[in-house]
């Protein structure tokens, strides 16, 4: 059994990481999950959160928002709309994201579709939780 898998993290603007990883914790839309080599093929959408990569050379963390992950036994690709290495994240990054989420929440509240309001509220809560989690 292989004990590493190919991990790729790409955003529309650049490719952030491409390495051999032993385990990757993904903030899936339905909850966090950890993908290890030989995981069943899965495609999941992401909620805003922290992506943790464990590699033989050491672990790294990225802040990701929006997009999806494709798990495929020996390879894992994460396509995120925004991805920033955690070390580079500042409070202002987060504030921008929270403001954006809050705006879409307000916009959704003005509309009629209740499910969108819930989604937006969840997004906002996710964003704020992220700030607390990272103790920024």
């Amino acid at each position, binding site marked *: 059994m292989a004990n590493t898998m190919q991990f790729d993290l790409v955003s529309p603007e650049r490719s952030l990481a491409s390495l051999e990883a032993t385990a990757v914790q993904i903030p899936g839309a339905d909850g966090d999950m950890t993908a290890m080599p030989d995981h069943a093929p899965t*495609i999941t959408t992401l909620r805003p959160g922290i992506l943790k990569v464990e590699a033989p050379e050491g672990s790294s963390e990225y802040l990701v928002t929006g997009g999806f992950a494709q798990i495929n036994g020996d390879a894992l690709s994460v396509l995120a709309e925004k991805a920033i290495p955690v070390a580079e994240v500042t409070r202002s990054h987060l504030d921008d994201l929270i403001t954006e989420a809050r705006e879409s929440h307000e916009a959704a509240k003005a509309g009629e579709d209740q499910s969108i309001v819930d989604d937006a509220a969840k997004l906002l809560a996710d964003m704020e939780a992220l700030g607390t989690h990272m103790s920024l």
Partner: protein
Amino acid sequence: MPNLKDLKNRIESVKSTRKITKAMQMVAAAKLRRAQESAEASRPYAERFNAVMAGLAASVGGSDSAPKLLRGTGSDDVHLLVVMTAERGLCGGFNSNIAKLARAKAYELKAQGKTVKILTVGKKGRDAIKRDHGDLFVGHVDLSEVKRLGYTNAQDIAKDILSRFDGAEFDVATIFYSKFVNVVTQIPTAQQIIPASFEETEDAQGDDSGAVFDYEPSEEAILADLLPKGVATAIFSGLLENGASEQGARMSAMDNATRNAGEMIDKLTIQFNRSRQAVITNELIEIISGAEAL
């Protein structure tokens, strides 16, 4: 026959024109490298995205529950043409080629009795289409203030288009941009983005197609979530291709201009030397015939 002073002035002015075109060519070359790099950096995302979407679309696409963005509105009476061009000119046929393609498409659709709406991105395309189809414009996106093209620019355009789609303003959307092949070749391209069509691309992970994926939350939910992102992704790669094409076109146009200026300087210099020689010969004849007359 122009006198010596006129010729001298013209040579000087062509020389400074050559300096300007030479400088523009070098600037374009430097920018081209950057534009090409960002176009290449965005390719893995677009390729994987399309590969996944193609798989999803194939499995959900047939059913009636498929999202509107994939299935279409059921009619194709109103077309939205999104024409993406540059903000600046002096880049050869780049802008006019895209405009020509869009114009032809607009005429073709009109002839079929469809309603056409045009959204322009970039000033030059707007100017080029205004005369023929100015009455069809529904909006314009100005990118002249944008220094470095980011994904957020594409998201803004996508948001605009999607809100129009939700407002049932059109049935089919097509984007027009120029595909970058190399410095001398750019191909004006039309690509339909709504309803989305995904080509099965030969991917590095070609063996994917055999695997059966679990979907979280569900295939439909993922598709509904990702389709709007697909619009933004398509626009972003279009914009980047355009950026590289623009610089490539400008580089070769300015290279030609520099060469033409050089040829013109050579020709004018020969003319200048000949007229100077003629003036000298004339003076000599006058002196000699004056001396002989004595």
